């Protein structure tokens, strides 16, 4: 049985550097996972189910989606996601039976009281639960503020309340290193204090109330006759431009409502970014995640918890297999763009590019969960590479370029790719460089305006050129958005995330060791990460469906264990809380 909590507490931090037996610490424990269908959650689930049979029970929290119950979503996930390949390979036809013993799928709504779980499940969890790992979150950098507050803040506070009401449970909250905001220097493994990255005093409760009020005001303002008129005028103008002005009034009405929704959403996206940048965060994601951490910190006296902050989570090093990736917010879009004809990437070559393989993050999660289970946890764990084994932006860019070069030379589809594109290296530049994206866009616009000035006859003949110009403009617009999104991480901030907390209780078992210091970045980028992106992430960017796993023995769980509260009175107000997705 596991190390006694009382004994461990008695040792306190004095024995903090003593290795921790992960198997002993987690043996017989009940662990609850949110965000189990996300990139990180899936790999963690697969890893512990494959490597840690000592865990007594894993509660996988999933929301029903589009009338598909959580259990069915879970089965589909296990049967089709490549992340679970090792599990199928290990258990084969016995996997359903194994999962039935180990896993309980629970259904609910995270931003509801008691997570929207059925009362009997709540009672059982309050009695049995040891660690709740909260992985769920909206990882979109520029989301609608309403959704971001619901998913990243409200869900976390509900979870904290739930854990606080459990008999002995602790919370492992998965956050991000980038809650540090736009600043420079070393970022310590500490809970946030009452200042924002801008240096101003910051109270999360007050800010949350203000943000909610702003959301309500925007929603109210857009539910106005003037807004409706503007939306209608926009729609009619667009239809006229497309030569489709003879649409049925019902169609027009539908389009107007859709346009109104889009306008509300855009206003909420803008409000999120405005508030984030006003306080010194680069985007709404990091702003809301930081608020969640601050709200947790304010409950430190009533709650046993750790915050685990990964940096940029990237392709797996080994588990479930080298190169597994389904993350959109990491280096994938940037790496993709660097393989196109666009060459000028604004970035500071010396700034750290803090990436970390997903399976290392999952190992760290398991170690931190084990430490929580035996009261040897630290308040904050940074899981990044900039402190221990730094890879600079310049080096990452060079390795991306070299990978594209290798790819175009070995697997070229055209001679142009082999001869020219393989040598068309992207280079890092200052944002205002002459051939930068902004000037490229301006040049395309001038080109389009020049075409517009042509006489009618010539203009018709030049239509293919104009169409090409429009295509280019669209591509450049997407690249510009991408560049803006990455600029805070690659150009504006220069920070090193101190990552030492995990060393205070290193895993005793070799299979849970955290080998970041030995990671060879060249091998990782060229042989693992970039081929992984090419296989799993780039098809998504191209709008293609990536490969799916096809298990020989599809998992079928029995109907019984899945449960959700039917009592809507427990759910509370749900207007603001739609749309939780997973990391």
């Amino acid at each position: 049985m596991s190390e006694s909590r009382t004994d461990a507490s008695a040792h306190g931090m004095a024995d903090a550097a003593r290795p921790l037996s992960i198997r002993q610490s987690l043996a017989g424990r009940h662990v609850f996972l949110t965000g189990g269908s996300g990139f990180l959650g899936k790999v963690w689930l697969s890893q512990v189910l494959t490597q840690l049979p000592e865990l007594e029970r894993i509660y996988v929290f999933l929301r029903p989606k589009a009338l598909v119950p959580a259990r069915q979503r879970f089965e589909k996930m296990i049967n089709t996601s490549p992340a679970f390949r090792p599990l199928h390979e290990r258990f084969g036809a016995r996997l359903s039976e194994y999962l039935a013993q180990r896993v309980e799928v629970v259904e609910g709504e995270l931003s509801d009281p008691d997570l929207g779980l059925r009362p009997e499940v709540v009672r059982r969890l309050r009695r049995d639960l040891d660690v709740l790992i909260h992985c769920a979150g909206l990882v979109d950098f520029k989301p609608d503020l309403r959704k971001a507050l619901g998913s990243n803040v409200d869900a976390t506070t509900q979870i904290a309340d739930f854990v606080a009401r459990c008999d002995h449970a602790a919370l492992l909250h998965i956050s991000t290193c980038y809650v540090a905001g736009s600043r420079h220097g070393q970022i310590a493994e500490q809970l946030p204090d009452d200042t924002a990255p801008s240096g101003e005093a910051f109270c999360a409760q007050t800010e949350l109330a203000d943000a909610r009020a702003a959301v309500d005001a925007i929603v109210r303002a857009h539910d106005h006759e003037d807004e409706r008129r503007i939306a209608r005028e926009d729609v009619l103008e667009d239809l006229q431009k497309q030569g489709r002005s003879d649409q049925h009034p019902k169609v027009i009405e539908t389009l107007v409502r859709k346009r109104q929704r889009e306008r509300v959403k855009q206003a909420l996206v803008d409000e999120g970014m405005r508030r984030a940048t006003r306080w010194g965060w680069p985007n709404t994601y990091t702003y809301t995640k930081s608020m969640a951490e601050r709200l947790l910190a304010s409950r430190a006296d009533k709650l046993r918890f750790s915050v685990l902050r990964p940096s940029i989570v990237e392709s797996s090093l080994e588990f479930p297999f080298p190169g597994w990736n389904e993350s959109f917010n990491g280096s994938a879009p940037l790496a993709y763009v660097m393989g196109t004809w666009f060459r000028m990437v604004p970035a500071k070559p010396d700034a750290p590019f803090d990436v970390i393989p997903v399976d290392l993050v999952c190992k760290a999660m398991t170690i931190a969960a084990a430490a929580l289970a035996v009261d040897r946890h630290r308040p904050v764990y940074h899981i990044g590479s900039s402190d221990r084994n730094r890879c600079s932006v310049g080096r990452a860019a060079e390795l991306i370029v070299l990978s594209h070069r290798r790819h175009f030379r070995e697997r070229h589809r055209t001679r142009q790719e082999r001869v020219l594109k393989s040598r068309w290296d992207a280079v890092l530049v200052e944002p205002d460089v002459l051939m930068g994206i902004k000037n490229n866009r301006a040049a395309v616009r001038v080109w389009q305006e020049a075409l517009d000035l042509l006489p009618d006859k010539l203009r018709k003949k030049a239509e293919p050129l104009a169409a090409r110009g429009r295509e280019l403009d669209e591509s450049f617009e997407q690249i510009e958005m991408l560049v803006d999104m990455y600029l805070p991480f690659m150009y504006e901030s220069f920070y090193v995330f101190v990552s030492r907390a995990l060393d205070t209780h290193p895993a005793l078992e070799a299979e849970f060791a955290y080998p970041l210091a030995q990671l060879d970045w060249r091998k990782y980028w060229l042989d693992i990460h970039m081929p992984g992106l090419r296989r799993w992430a780039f098809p998504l960017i191209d709008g293609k469906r990536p490969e799916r796993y096809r298990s020989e023995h599809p998992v079928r769980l029995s109907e019984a264990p899945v449960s959700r509260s039917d009592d809507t009175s427990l759910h509370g107000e749900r207007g603001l809380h739609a749309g939780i997705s997973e990391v």
Partner: protein
Amino acid sequence: MQSDNEKQSAVFVRAEGVLLARGARAAAAYFAANAAGFGERALRLGHLAWASPVYEVLGQSDRVLANRLAYLALRGMSEDRIAELAQEYFDNILRERILEGGLELIRRARREGKRVVVIADSLAQVMAPLVAQLRIVDDYVCNHLEIRDGKATGRLVPPVVGGHDSAVWAATYAQEHDLDLARCSAYVSHGPDLLLLSRVGQPCAVNPDYTLRRAARDSRWPVMDYHV
């Protein structure tokens, strides 16, 4: 201590000219032509262009300075790019330019029970895949670029291979491995290897340059010519 009769023998082979039809300058040119960015490529190739005649002249008497000049073109290039380009250079260029005549000399030496030692002006990154593929080389010595903060400084780590020191190096190697130099052979192709040839019992000039050919004729060393 073994007696001279019991000592092992070895064959010292100069990679460039005997085993490979391409030298250090060709490798440096490949790296330069594939540097990051068009401007950088032009600058590096420009450097090699002016260094080339100097290399040609110096190479006949002392290749140390010649090699230093050639590899200076790699200054500021990332270690990652050098490693990737080296593998690429080997796969696409060098693999096709391994000389069958040189391979035959090595095979014959191995059949005679000799230890095979290759001396190369080339960089370690280029030599590693070559040696791994050949699998008939016991040891090799080559040049190493100095790397600082992940980038080449353009300097070679001393001792730089390519000069008259190859004779000293071979003598030290023989001592360390208990070899009898009088029973060793050497196949070299450059003027600076004269001293090495004079130290071994069975010298042979292979595809020699002007300086070495003249010295071989004067010293009555055998000369082999095969297609380079």
